């Protein structure tokens, strides 16, 4: 692959990360099957990888991907009568999309009521019919735009396991005929709790990353915060969402303090010393010194205690 091609591929990947959730959400509304929607979106991504390096990135990449995916949906419907019956809802909307010229990409992209679809996608990915670990994997895949490989690295799990987990989750949603909807007010608190649980699980997975871990692990924290912000934008009237975002933000703010330059955890006494609380730090160093069975370590801890005393 030439350098130009590599650059184009990275650009396509970036567009995918930005747009994929909205595209899958919009397609799910049309085809009523989150698995099929994702397949169609992936088909569009493959088409982009073939065409964009030569033709350049279109003015509205999201609109381009969406329209291409809709074309694929029409092709599928024509090839597969059984699918056509199931997808009768597609009807004229898809036919109209196919007729529209490339110049109309803007209109296609702008007319989508995507925000509602995105919210529905969050609720369906975090549906209680799925296990917590299935919800986490599916959310990272559909809303985070992460590949199976990236999810596996982030969760310290084998790639085939994650692939199976995602496939099974999609099948479970289909076989239970889980509707693509924002839950009714009566069901909403419990369903929202399920979404928030998933975001916090993703966050904690990243937060427990240690020195030497793959960079995908801490990246999960950023992804959880980002999805939390998206959710807060979609449901600005839900205090629980803002509460979780605030919690994740304040925990994120501690990242630089809790690890040293080598990525190793900073022990409590050192944290206290850094925070300008030398008396408490000295007390903690002395406590640690009484607990250790290691002579040189005790000497070092007592020396640090003395240094804190001098500052106090």
């Amino acid at each position, binding site marked *: 692959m030439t350098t130009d091609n590599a650059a184009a591929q990275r650009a396509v990947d970036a567009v995918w990360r930005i747009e994929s959730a909205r595209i899958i959400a919009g397609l799910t509304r049309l085809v009523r099957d989150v698995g099929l929607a994702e397949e169609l979106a992936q088909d569009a991504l493959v088409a982009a990888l073939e065409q964009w390096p030569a033709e350049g990135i279109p003015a509205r990449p999201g609109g381009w991907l969406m329209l291409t995916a809709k074309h694929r949906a029409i092709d599928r419907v024509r090839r597969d009568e059984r699918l056509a019956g199931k997808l009768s809802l597609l009807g004229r909307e898809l036919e109209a999309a196919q007729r529209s010229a490339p110049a109309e990409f803007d209109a296609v992209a702008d007319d989508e009521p995507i925000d509602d679809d995105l919210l529905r996608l969050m609720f369906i990915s975090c549906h209680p019919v799925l296990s917590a670990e299935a919800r986490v994997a599916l959310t990272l895949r559909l809303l985070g735009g992460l590949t199976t490989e990236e999810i596996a690295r982030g969760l310290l799990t084998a790639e085939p396991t994650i692939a199976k987990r995602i496939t099974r989750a999609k099948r479970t949603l289909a076989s239970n005929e889980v509707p693509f909807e924002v839950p009714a007010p009566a069901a909403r608190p419990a369903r929202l709790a399920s979404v928030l649980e998933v975001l916090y699980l993703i966050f904690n997975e990243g937060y427990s990353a240690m020195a030497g871990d793959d960079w995908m692990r801490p990246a999960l924290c950023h992804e959880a915060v*980002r999805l939390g912000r998206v959710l807060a934008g979609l449901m600005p009237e839900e205090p629980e969402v803002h509460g979780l975002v605030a919690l994740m933000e304040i925990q994120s703010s501690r990242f*630089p303090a809790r690890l040293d330059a080598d990525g190793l955890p900073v022990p409590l006494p050192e944290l206290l010393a850094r925070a300008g609380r030398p008396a408490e730090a000295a007390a903690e160093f002395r406590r640690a010194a009484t607990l250790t069975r290691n002579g040189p370590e005790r000497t070092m801890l007592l020396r640090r205690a003395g240094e804190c005393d001098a500052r106090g």
Partner: protein
Amino acid sequence: MGRFVEELARAGVLLATGGLDRGTHVSASGGNITLTDGPFTESKEVIVSFALIEARSKDEAVELARRFWKIVGDGEGDIRQVYGPEG
């Protein structure tokens, strides 16, 4: 542009935006501080606004910048990474 900014905020990417006035240029040399009006008064290049975004990769930041300049038209800008406090 308003729509673009709103999209970024809703995507959980945009942390802050702001316009910058010409301000005061500070020059330090040999312990002496000199203040002059505005940065590079004669210069054609003046930073007039900024957006603080949290992107997942440099490629994503570049793609968002591309969309920004599609809307703005001709001009110049820089993409800079912000480093947090060291551990």
